[in-house]
């Protein structure tokens, strides 16, 4: 599988988690993977359901439901110039945001399974240490293509 719909931004300036979510979501829209409504729903889910999406120290995985405007499977990654708080009791503050979209409940499974393995193997640190956006993208491509899961 070749993961084509990837985007990355480095050291993004935001004031709070909602701005961070919008910045990551805007990349999904640019990629053609999500509608603006999908991006709104990403933040709404955090407000409605609490900050469980902060699934490891410093790392949030944001998404909405396919029916909220998911158009194609894709992944956007941003690192933050200053970490923000999501209100998670243990995993705050967050400096790495991963946002994904999917058009249905299946098409993102392979992408996320690969992402999980890559994160276990230190992709989060590699992304934080990248010195350019092209380096982030290269590391993403390498990590996601080399972890065969299913």
């Amino acid at each position: 599988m070749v993961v084509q719909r990837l985007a990355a931004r480095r050291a993004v300036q935001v004031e709070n988690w909602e701005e961070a979510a919008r910045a990551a979501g805007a990349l999904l829209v640019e990629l053609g993977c999500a509608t603006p409504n999908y991006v709104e729903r990403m933040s709404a889910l955090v407000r409605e359901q609490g900050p469980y999406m902060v699934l490891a120290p410093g790392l949030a995985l944001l998404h909405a439901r396919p029916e909220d405007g998911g158009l194609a499977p894709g992944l956007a990654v941003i690192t933050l110039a200053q970490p923000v708080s999501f209100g998670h009791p243990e995993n705050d503050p967050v400096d790495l945001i991963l946002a994904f979209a999917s058009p249905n409940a299946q098409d993102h499974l392979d992408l996320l399974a690969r992402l999980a393995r890559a994160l276990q193997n230190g992709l989060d640190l590699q992304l934080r240490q990248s010195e350019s956006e092209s380096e982030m993208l290269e590391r993403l491509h390498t990590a996601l293509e080399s972890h065969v899961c299913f």
Partner: protein
Amino acid sequence: MRLTRDPLYIATVCGVGMGSSLILKMTVEDALRELGIPGRVEHMDLSSVRSARVDVIVAQPLHTEELKGLNALVIPVTNFLDKEGIKRALVTRLREVGWIAE
């Protein structure tokens, strides 16, 4: 490692059942494999798990608080990428309820 319940049926749970729970499923599967525990892991959302007949539920503490009344072993996990931490939590809780055949 042998269990009195074999294979173990584990649900990884999050609010929507698409993202965080899928990441957690991968880590739990790796943890089980390394422990030599036969198990089946499925990811699902908070409402689905209420009607699923599972042995173990793994989720963020935020969610496990809501799931405490269910007839399943509930294991809170804060870091979904921490395979070693999840291995320790699994063994500790499975031993507590006597599911590990000594």
